[in-house]
């Protein structure tokens, strides 16, 4: 019941925001002091609102499983509307060309997972803790399971 409603909410958010992952947790310090590890970002990805310079985009790079959250530094748009852009982390001293796939110089719309629209601090720390220390996750699960079994009325 809980699992299925969580799945429904997630899929519903995907439809409303147009992003394949509407909520992401910041995993690195490359956008400090704006975003720290464990902060939560809400994304949208409406195709009718084109990407512009200064926006914070979340993008995927071939060969890396974890999406990156960085700011758009440069953008060129052709007459037919196709865009290419370059990103940089606020806390990094150089742009992201070194992070992209080998030989890749620009990002395009198909690399974008979403654009950051909302911010909530620290809440994502729970998921980071659970992923880095699986023992905590198992302990919580075991505790909850026991609790349910013992506290049957």
């Amino acid at each position, binding site marked *: 019941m809980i699992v299925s409603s969580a799945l429904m909410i997630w899929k519903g958010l995907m439809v409303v925001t147009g992003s394949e992952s509407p909520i992401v947790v910041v995993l690195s310090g490359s956008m400090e002091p*704006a975003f720290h590890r464990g902060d939560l970002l809400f994304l949208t990805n409406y195709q009718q609102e084109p990407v512009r*310079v200064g926006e*914070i985009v979340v993008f995927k790079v071939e060969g890396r499983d974890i999406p990156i959250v960085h700011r*758009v530094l*440069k953008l*060129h748009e*052709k007459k037919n509307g196709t865009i290419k852009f370059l990103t940089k982390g606020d806390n990094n001293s150089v742009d992201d060309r070194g992070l992209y796939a080998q030989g890749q110089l620009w990002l395009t719309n198909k690399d974008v997972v979403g654009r950051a629209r909302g911010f909530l*601090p620290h809440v994502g720390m729970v998921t980071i803790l659970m992923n880095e220390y699986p023992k905590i996750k198992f302990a919580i699960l075991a505790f909850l399971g026991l609790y349910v079994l013992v506290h049957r009325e």
Partner: protein
Amino acid sequence: MHSFLSRGNAIIAYSLSVLALLTFFCFLSTEFLDYRAKAKISTPKILVKNVPDYSASRRENDLGYLTFDLQADLTPLFNWNVKQLFLYLSAEYSTPNNALNQVVLWDKIILRGENALLDFKNMNIKYYFWDDGHGLKGNPNVTLTLSWNIIPNAGRLPIIQSIGSHSFKFPSEYTTDRL
């Protein structure tokens, strides 16, 4: 009935919901504020060169260079739900190659409590002004705008353009000597 666990659970649940409510009120209290402000920009020095772009294609591209003056008072933008302003100066222009080009030339992070009264004279740009081709030489209309991205404690992440931008044109000859 009132075991240690149930008391602990009640305290944690209650404080979490109070925190969530307070955060929501913090967001609501600043959601409808006006974050616009004026900025005065000018460009004392403008050059354009034609050199190989080793960061990208290695082809020769137009490289613009300029210094700028900037005056703006952003102190009124800060309140209890503004953690940081991300300021950036961007150049916007069109070329035969591209209908729209946007290049960030300079940026600055201002945290709450830091000096937000800006008065810069003859500042150098922070990032290279590379064009995607040869669209800078003689370009008649390049617009410089100051914008800011507001980073709240919790809430939306709006991007606001300053009132007042500056347009200039690039010289129609390349500069060949060193900058």
